């Protein structure tokens, strides 16, 4: 139940990749036959990945990870548009790859505004409008949040940015292949997608860059990917990504229905546990994400309890070297630190069965109870 962290590779994907490891291993930049074969596979894959986001083939480049995409967008637009301005707006619940890139830019003299969200994690359009300045060059708001699953009002955000002539970037790592992603409807100029969240291989992603967008490369070198991302092209992984996309294209809708049922059942049953609470929006959320906090217990202990029973899950409570750090997303939606410490994320996937859901519903209440027995706060916070 931790499909949001990463997914296994679909066996059909691995099958598609194999020939590109062993036989068709050419360098896509080489002129000889092996190279041309690699080139053709690359361009076909590009078309597939572009088509599931309604983009032109020439507007999509492949990446070495989702993180690389966000780093490239933040730093690449910042450096390329320095003359226009030094101000960038990012939502406060962006993934670390956006936030840390933003912080790095802050250290280089750029100005960053962190946009607040409401208790469901939704970005407030008025706040965005107020945050925009003359020298704003980029707005970054993710499509769907990786922790609490909230789906942001990207169409409206994009529309506003377009009106103001500001680039709009959306990190769609968690949404692409799970819910519809359409760069036209979303009014985005830049959009990142990730292979290993949809049964493709790790170490591959793609970036949509609308024609005419001013951006610098992050990886300089031999000039691959239209000069925007150098590195010998990882054809096998890209072919694998494209295969995963092809599969999701066919199975996305039926799969989303199935996940939504699981999700809503998890939410309904788990909220029956005393002092348990849902995080994120009740309906504007990813079909496969259920996120909670349980009073009086700590998340790492909880997921380890679950792990003892073979259940994988995730929490927003993470170790730092002097204490546990509650997730920035949970603080941003207004949770108190001690509440955020007791958080649990369950994310289902296409290999999740009804039995798995039943099993979680059997084990989780016991695990919560057990940890509350250990807790000094079993009776309530002091």
């Amino acid at each position, binding site marked *: 139940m931790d499909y949001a962290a990463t997914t296994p590779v679909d066996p059909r994907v691995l099958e598609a990749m194999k020939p590109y490891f062993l036989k068709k291993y050419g360098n896509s930049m080489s002129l000889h036959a092996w190279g041309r074969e690699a080139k053709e596979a690359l361009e076909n894959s590009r078309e597939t990945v572009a088509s599931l986001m309604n983009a032109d083939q020439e507007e999509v480049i492949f990446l070495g990870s989702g993180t690389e995409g966000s780093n490239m967008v933040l730093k690449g637009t910042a450096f390329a548009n320095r003359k226009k301005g030094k101000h960038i707006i990012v939502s406060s619940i962006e993934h670390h790859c956006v936030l840390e890139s933003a912080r790095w830019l802050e250290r280089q003299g750029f100005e960053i505004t962190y946009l607040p*969200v409401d208790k469901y994690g939704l970005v407030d359009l008025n706040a965005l409008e107020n945050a925009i300045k003359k020298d704003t060059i980029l707005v970054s708001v993710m499509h769907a949040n990786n922790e609490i699953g909230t789906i942001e009002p990207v169409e409206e955000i994009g529309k506003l940015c377009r009106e103001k002539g500001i680039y709009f970037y959306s990190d769609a790592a968690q949404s692409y292949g799970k819910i519809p992603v359409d760069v036209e409807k979303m009014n985005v100029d830049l959009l990142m997608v990730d292979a290993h969240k949809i049964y493709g291989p790790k170490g591959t992603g793609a970036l949509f860059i609308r024609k005419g967008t001013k951006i610098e490369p992050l990886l300089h070198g031999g000039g691959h990917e239209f000069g925007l991302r150098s590195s010998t092209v990882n054809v096998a992984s890209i072919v694998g990504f494209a295969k995963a996309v092809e599969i999701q294209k066919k199975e996305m809708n039926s799969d989303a229905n199935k996940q939504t049922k699981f999700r809503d059942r998890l939410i309904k049953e788990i909220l029956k546990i005393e002092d348990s609470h849902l995080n994120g929006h009740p309906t504007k959320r990813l079909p496969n994400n259920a996120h909670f906090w349980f009073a009086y217990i700590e998340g790492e202990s909880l997921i380890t309890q679950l792990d003892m029973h073979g259940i994988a899950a995730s929490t927003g409570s993470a*170790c730092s070297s002097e204490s546990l750090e509650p997730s920035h997303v949970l603080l*941003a*939606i207004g949770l108190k630190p*001690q509440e955020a410490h007791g958080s649990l994320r369950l994310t289902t996937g296409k290999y999740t069965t009804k039995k798995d859901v039943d099993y979680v519903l059997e084990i989780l209440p016991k695990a919560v109870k057990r940890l509350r027995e250990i807790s000094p*706060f079993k009776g309530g916070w002091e």
Partner: protein
Amino acid sequence: MKEVFLYPETVVRHFRKPKNMGRMKNPSGIGKVGNLLCGDVLWLYIKVKKDEKGEESIADVKFECFGCVVAIGISSVLTTMVKGKPLEEALKLRKEDILGKTGPLPPIKVHCSVLAVDALHEAIYDYYLRNKTQIPEQLQKEHERIQKTLEKVEERFKKYVELQEKVFGAKKS
């Protein structure tokens, strides 16, 4: 699937089946350390017994913990190490003694073992205080360090949260 542990096996075993877990009625001393905001709170209870020679030892010990796997596991390990031990000996316990028993922790988790030792010493401190026993100089110093550290961590943490609130506009409901 082979079992691979992020933490020493002993710690995980104790987390799975903690010994001496729970609240104690009428303890001789309580040590309360850690901080709710940080997600680490440990309460340690001791029952002290005097033998014929007047030597004080830990007849019983219990703990309650709101915290991570290592905090819970190590606390349990510690209780098994000090149960029955004379107070003087218990006072000599250092985190190295625990880690000697469990094996090394990842650097990021070392503070969890400090937490357990601190709770023990605070409980003894509390016992001495309640019994108006003269507090050994060393323990007094330790008590002051612990209180100061707690304050510092809390302060640092509050700053972090304030920053988050300022930056991220949290604190809604």
